[in-house]
């Protein structure tokens, strides 16, 4: 792969650091008037999700990472891998292991489109859309008439995720969930 020099650093650049693919979240040129220039980068390790600050000397270069974010449809799991298919019409399939799927596992729904991050053509991360519609598989019976306000209860969704929902929600309903906060938004 190519190398990037510190003067080419910018948010979103994917690079190799200590053997792992990383993404630059934020880049700042730091230079005292009479001193040495540095480039301070908020870096995210794409495999572990760790975010930290890494500083580079001016002129330092690092290897680019062969990383791509692609839209893929979730198909099924065989227990070991979660299988996705490219949404570009090529039907090409990729299997992501448990560490690549990570927290997204509780939002995986068949036929939904996810962003799968490929590193050297293998999935390393899966990101859910901001909102998914999921069916309630288990919750206490709904309280009739109480649609306006007050109280919440746990509900288990088809993917296994547990979210707090209003008291009037019934088993079998479809709910719109914000995957970033893991919170109920509305009935779907």
């Amino acid at each position, binding site marked *: 792969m190519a190398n990037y020099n510190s003067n080419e650093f910018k948010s979103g650049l994917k690079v190799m650091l200590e053997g792992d693919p990383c993404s630059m979240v934020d880049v700042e*040129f730091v*230079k005292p*008037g009479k*001193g*040495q*220039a540095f480039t301070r980068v908020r870096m995210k390790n794409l495999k572990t999700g760790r975010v*930290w600050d890494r*500083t580079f000397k001016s002129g330092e270069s690092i290897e680019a990472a062969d990383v791509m974010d692609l839209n893929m449809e979730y198909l099924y799991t065989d227990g070991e891998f979660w299988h996705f298919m490219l949404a570009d019409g090529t039907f090409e399939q990729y299997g992501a292991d448990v560490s690549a799927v990570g927290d997204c596992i509780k939002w995986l729904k068949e036929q939904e489109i996810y962003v799968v991050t490929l590193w050297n053509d293998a999935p390393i991360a899966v990101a859910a859309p901001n909102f998914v519609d999921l069916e309630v598989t288990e919750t206490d019976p709904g309280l009739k008439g109480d649609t306006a306000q007050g109280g919440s209860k746990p509900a288990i969704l088809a993917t296994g995720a547990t979210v707090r929902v209003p008291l009037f929600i019934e088993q079998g309903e479809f709910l719109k969930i914000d995957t970033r906060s893991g919170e109920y938004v509305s009935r779907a």
Partner: protein
Amino acid sequence: MLRLPKADISQHHQLHQLRNRAKVISQIRAFFAARDVLEVDTPVMSHYGVSDPHIDSIPVTFTPDGTSIGHSMYLMSSPEYAMKRLLAAGSGCIYQIAKAFRNGEAGRRHNPEFTLLEWYRLDFTLEQLMQEVANLIDIVLIDEVLEWHFWSYRQAFEEVLSINPLTASDDAIQAKALAHVDIQMDHSTPRDTWLDLLMSHCIEPQLPTACFIYDYPASQAALARTDIDERGNKVARRFEVYVNGIELANGYHELTDAQEQEQRFALDNAARSAMSKVPMAADIRLVAALQAGLPECSGVALGVERLLMLASGEKDIAKVMAFNHHLA
């Protein structure tokens, strides 16, 4: 009313920033008029660039009409050399609002072309000049009541990092830097680079809202005279001003010794060579001015756009410029 293409205004800056800049420039002129400091204007393009190892002048070529032979010149990184020649010629106290150029410097707080307010005060001590800088900033940032702190460089390191930057060993400074900053840097890297790293990454974010740092390590003197501090350590009589963690200005009790000035040019160039940078010829006119006699003075350079950023609460220098370098 100024008319700019609509896209320029909406995307890159707002007209109120133009008005704010004009207001601050007029405040600066009134400040110096009241103090009987003369406004001057010196060349932006010069035969000599700065020798400072960490500042790179932007080279330009002047080609006289009728020839194809170009003369190498530089866009000035500050008006310092030329203003000192005026001081040596007997100008008295002077100031300048000058365009300055620095190669390679671009970021949220840097634009390769920017505005420096530089001024020199005859017979001022460093303390007197620091007070005057604080007075000027107080006038521009009128909406904030700033409580000014004056910390020595040593005190700042001791307060924030519990290490004495003047007396600690090179190994101790390196260990401190590597404990706080994730970076890969050779052990042979100069001590001042490690100190710069600690200053920019650990100390600046921890400084009081309005703070002067003074008495730098003698190795970071640039064009300041050196002296012995109250603990017997050799220090540079130099200061920097920080407001909200933003470096605003750099001042010196000015070096007036021509011989020492020549030695510093040589040291700068040795440092430049070690960094694989081209050496810069010593400005013989500056050396000649010092030989003729630079009066006792203190001087300071203040980044005008940085001051505008503070005055308007902007985090990006592009927001306070009509057009930053991408749009120039």
